[in-house]
């Protein structure tokens, strides 16, 4: 009996000390970041610099993968649709799957591994080399000066990147479907326009990407700030950022999809 109680106690201690404590700390950290966000907007060039690193430098990977995902969707979708004699619905299939799901989710995953990991490594290394402590010594709040601009840069960049991914994907589907396979161009666009709704599909996709942007940026800055100030600590934190953000994106995607598309 005592052995089982001992095991349960160890498990409980582990859950409280690692997960719940960290979750609470992350929430307090988010609140602190939001509270200290004033300078990121008053001195907007701080945020612009971070948008460059998080957003502009992610452009190539987002655009190229969007194009290829769209082209693959075009090929696979045509292969299935042509069996039912409705290959004209290819535009609907490509655009709806991109705008509703693949655009926000894949762009979010790419953003987490391209920009989120860089943010964590940067903040973690700043902490390890005691730059953050040095800032505090000079009465500069590191959360206002370092963390908040990176957080807001991620939140601003993510919806733009997801929209670019979807647009590139639709273009890729058009290239393969219309130019390569020879689906009728008129019905490709008109069926797409008839099936895709602005509020139901486009706006919900933008909301999804905004939520993913907040989640990824939050996890990235938190893991960086919380990283143990060693080389191992920073590398572990970077890995955790990618793993946690990817899982968070997929889980949040399910919750958001369940809330948004209940099929009436």
């Amino acid at each position, binding site marked *: 009996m005592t052995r089982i109680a001992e095991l349960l106690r160890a498990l409980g201690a582990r859950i409280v000390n690692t997960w719940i404590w960290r979750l609470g700390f992350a929430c307090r950290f988010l609140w602190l970041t939001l509270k200290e966000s004033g300078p990121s907007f008053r001195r907007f060039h701080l945020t612009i610099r971070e948008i*460059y690193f998080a*957003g*502009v430098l992610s*452009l190539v990977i987002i655009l190229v993968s969007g194009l290829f995902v769209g082209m693959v969707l075009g090929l696979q979708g045509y292969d299935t649709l042509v069996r039912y004699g409705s290959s004209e619905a290819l535009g609907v299939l490509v655009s709806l799957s991109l705008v509703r799901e693949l655009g926000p989710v894949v762009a979010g995953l790419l953003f987490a591994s391209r920009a989120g990991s860089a943010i964590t490594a940067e903040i973690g290394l700043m902490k390890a080399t005691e730059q953050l402590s040095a800032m505090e010594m000079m009465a500069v709040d590191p959360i206002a000066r370092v963390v908040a601009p990176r957080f807001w840069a991620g939140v601003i960049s993510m919806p733009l990147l997801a929209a670019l991914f*979807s647009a590139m994907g639709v273009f890729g589907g058009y290239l393969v479907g219309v130019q390569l396979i020879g689906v009728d161009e008129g019905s490709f666009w008109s069926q797409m326009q008839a099936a895709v709704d*602005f509020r139901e599909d*486009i706006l919900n996709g933008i909301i999804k990407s905004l939520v993913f942007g907040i989640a990824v940026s939050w996890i990235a800055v938190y893991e960086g700030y919380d990283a143990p100030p060693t080389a191992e600590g920073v590398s572990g934190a970077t890995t955790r950022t990618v793993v946690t953000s990817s899982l968070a994106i997929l889980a949040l995607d399910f919750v958001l999809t369940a809330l948004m598309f209940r099929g009436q």
Partner: protein
Amino acid sequence: MMTRKELDLWVGIFAVIGIGAILFLSLKVANLASFSAADSYRINANFDNIGGLKVRAAVKSAGVVVGRVGEIRFDNGSFEAVVALDIDGRYQFPKDSSAKILTSGLLGDQYIGLSAGGDSANLKNGDTLKLTQSAIVLENLIGQFLYSKAAEGDGKK
């Protein structure tokens, strides 16, 4: 290290093409511009059975989309479905036009077909269509078919 001007330029380009992508999705993919609810008028139609009709389904006349289904509700007085149709203000229909629920293809979406009548007065906002034809429910159709077959069989004996 880049100068601040270069940085601003790149971020500006990023913002412009990002917003351009959102505009492309809204205008070209979702076709937001073609049908706005601002210049439409609403007419009602009562149906015994609407089948699988959904809100935002198309309203077509002669195959051309002239409006959308705005609202579907149940009238507890007459036990009928009341379907509100938002018709584009550019299209006018006579007062005695009729509406029926049709299906595009064998398994496609259901939509409302408007057939123009011969009245000289046109439908106005808030009018109700008098002539309607309900959706064809496949189960009822099969039931009727079986029933008539059975009746035929009885007659032969």
